[in-house]
């Protein structure tokens, strides 16, 4: 992105290399951050196209466009690509760009490992996406790949799926180690832990979650591999195993995973809301404790994904209570954001529009999550579109809008240009309307009795499905506008100052825009 050489550096080369080796060999956190973000957006469009296929088939009852076998591949790959290819890499991209700038460090702690962490991803996803073209098709057992559907009854490509998951897991773990080392060891003098910006805090905690649970995911897919290829019976009753064991181990990873996918957004939104309210973030300390509490609690709630499996009463009650408890720290955060806005001096540029939408719509997703936590009621919600509505509300206006907000917020710093505000607001409104049209009716569909993961449905579900598909198409097309906005901003636009947002605080706003290739070669003093 930036080719301006840092004039006072003596030991480093002057500016980035030229051509493709720049990108293949770079150890620069800004370059690597950009690559993560570009990869993530490409995966977002790919996973989004699969969603378009799904919504096209669900536009009307009957099978019109695809066969059920392929439909199951689309739902599976859409989930895998969005979770592991779009959301997680986007947050790592934001971490790479912004963590060193926010703590006054010259780069990440382990720059070469940083490069490897990135390049593993295109390899992993090449393998994963190529399964679509293999005999038997791509994985078709849902992104949650329960045994024995995924073991005994999975297509031949399952082994490649497992391989891709391992590679992507290694990338995530290396990235997490890098983040922890950077944050713990490279903060500018004077920046104590409780003076760190909130985005740094949320990424520190996210990195610990990654270290804790990605290996468990690696374990469960390895067990799968062994059941499929080496005659073991981890999940096979005939050999003394238990399919429910799969679910326990998977969700032990899976639940912290969803917090991995939202905590960095919590951090970014805190910056943005404070900046556009021109007021300090309300309750910094409680924000930190809340994120810590959420992370800790996330380890003891996994079986709320398994309420209908036949867990005994005492277990159900424990998981219900623990899950309900997460509403407390999450609520604290929402109250803090709203109170930051209260009696501020608000303006609504694109980052703030996305941030406000985040707060409202993520909270709605949180409410449906609370409803799902009520175990007896969950017997009616589980595996229906009510769940699909819930997680799309926390992931789309949650994680994705958080990423868009961050992108608009930091694009001036990355590129040196202001993005086109009118186009950006258009992108916001189209996304907001499209997203709500797509996912709000899903609450009704689930309550009315429509199960998940079906390519065709009974007639009473037809009308809301049509509305949902229209919203989805609208949302999908709007993302092409975002691509246009970013490309346009990279290539030119109104010059951005070091601090284009007058309410913003932090070390990142003290360096020029675009940020020079090397920044903070000498650490700043933090008061």
């Amino acid at each position: 992105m930036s080719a301006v050489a840092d004039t006072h550096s003596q030991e480093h080369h002057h500016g980035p290399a030229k051509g493709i080796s720049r990108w293949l060999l770079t150890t620069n956190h800004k370059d690597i951050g950009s690559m993560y973000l570009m990869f993530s957006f490409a995966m977002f469009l790919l996973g989004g196209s699969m969603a378009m296929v799904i919504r096209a088939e669900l536009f009307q009852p009957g099978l019109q466009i695809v066969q059920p076998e392929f439909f199951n591949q689309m739902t599976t790959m859409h989930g895998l690509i969005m979770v592991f290819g779009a959301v997680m890499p986007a947050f790592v991209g934001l971490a790479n760009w912004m963590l060193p700038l926010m703590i006054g460090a010259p780069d990440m702690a382990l720059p070469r490992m940083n490069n490897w962490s990135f390049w593993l991803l295109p390899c992993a996803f090449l393998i994963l996406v190529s399964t679509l073209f293999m005999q038997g098709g791509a994985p078709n057992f849902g992104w949650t790949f329960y045994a024995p559907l995924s073991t005994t009854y999975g297509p031949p490509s399952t082994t490649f799926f497992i391989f891709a998951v391992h590679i992507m897991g290694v990338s995530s773990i290396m990235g997490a180690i890098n983040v922890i080392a950077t944050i713990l060891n490279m903060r500018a003098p004077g920046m104590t832990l409780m003076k760190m910006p909130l985005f740094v805090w949320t990424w520190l905690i996210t990195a610990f979650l990654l270290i804790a649970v990605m290996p468990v995911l690696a374990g469960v897919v390895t067990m799968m591999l062994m059941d499929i290829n080496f005659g073991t019976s981890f999940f096979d009753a005939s050999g003394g195993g238990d399919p429910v064991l799969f679910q326990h181990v998977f969700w032990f990873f899976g639940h912290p995973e969803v917090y991995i996918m939202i905590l960095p957004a919590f951090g970014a939104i805190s910056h943005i809301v404070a900046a556009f309210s021109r007021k300090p973030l309300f309750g910094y300390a409680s924000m930190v404790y809340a994120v810590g509490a959420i992370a800790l609690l996330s380890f003891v709630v996994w079986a709320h994904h398994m309420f209908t499996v036949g867990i005994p009463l005492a277990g159900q009650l424990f998981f219900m209570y623990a899950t309900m408890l997460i509403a407390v720290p999450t609520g604290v955060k929402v109250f803090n954001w709203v109170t930051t806005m209260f009696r501020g001096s608000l303006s609504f540029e694109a980052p703030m529009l996305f941030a406000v939408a985040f707060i409202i719509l993520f909270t709605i997703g949180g409410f449906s999550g609370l409803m799902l936590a009520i175990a007896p009621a969950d017997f009616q919600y589980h595996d229906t579109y009510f769940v699909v509505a819930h997680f799309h509300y926390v992931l789309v206006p949650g994680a994705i809008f958080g990423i868009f907000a961050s992108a608009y917020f930091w694009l001036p710093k990355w590129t040196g240009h202001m993005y086109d505000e009118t186009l950006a607001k258009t992108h916001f409104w189209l996304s907001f309307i499209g997203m709500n049209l797509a996912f709000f009716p899903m609450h009704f569909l689930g309550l009315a009795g429509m199960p998940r993961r079906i390519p065709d449905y009974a007639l009473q579900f037809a009308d809301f499905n049509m509305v949902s598909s229209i919203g989805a198409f609208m949302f999908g097309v709007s993302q092409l506008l975002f691509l246009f906005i970013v490309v346009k901003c990279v290539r030119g636009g109104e010059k951005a100052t070091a601090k284009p947002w007058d309410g913003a605080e932090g070390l990142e706003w003290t360096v020029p825009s675009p940020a020079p290739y090397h920044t903070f070669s000498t650490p700043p003093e933090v008061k």
Partner: protein
Amino acid sequence: MAEPQPQHGKRSNGRVIAWCMAGVVGMFAFGFALVPLYDVFCEITGINGKTGGRYEAQVTNQVDANRTVTVQFLASNGPGMSWEFRPVTRSIKVHPGEPVTVNFYAENGSDQAMVGQAVPSLSPAEGTLYFHKTECFCFNQQPLEAGESTEMPLVFIVDPELPEHITKLTLSYTLYDQSQKAEVSGAAGAAKTTNNNG
């Protein structure tokens, strides 16, 4: 939380990496440890309905003649298993503490020798700890020649400590075709292999 900042140095990075890698390896091992942990947890609490192995009946087991518990029996075939498999007795009322024998009928109607393995599951799960099998056809594989049929015994005792509110237990067996595996280990149609799946 003011503390002096560590110098950016290879040694502190090294330490972070070492701790993180230890965490990674530990959590990977934990993932695998969950497998036996789950089994142990299930054994202790009986929560997944898997009744335990062979039970050594105590001579001093008291029979509670005042209480009756109904025990139901179900039989299912695993995928691809073609034997006829059914409980001879569908349901029986027992007194906790007294050993009871029931039989299951199995017939290999195909034209090949086959080996079956029955896997039990009990409901409600809280009853699992109180259902003791002293003799069960599920402890061993069952080889049957083509056309051969057999009656397989189950000898069990319902523990008098069974919680008061449980008045009915349902024991379900799923019969799996293990002919391939038995062949591979050279045990087809020959000696029974003790298998602690019970």
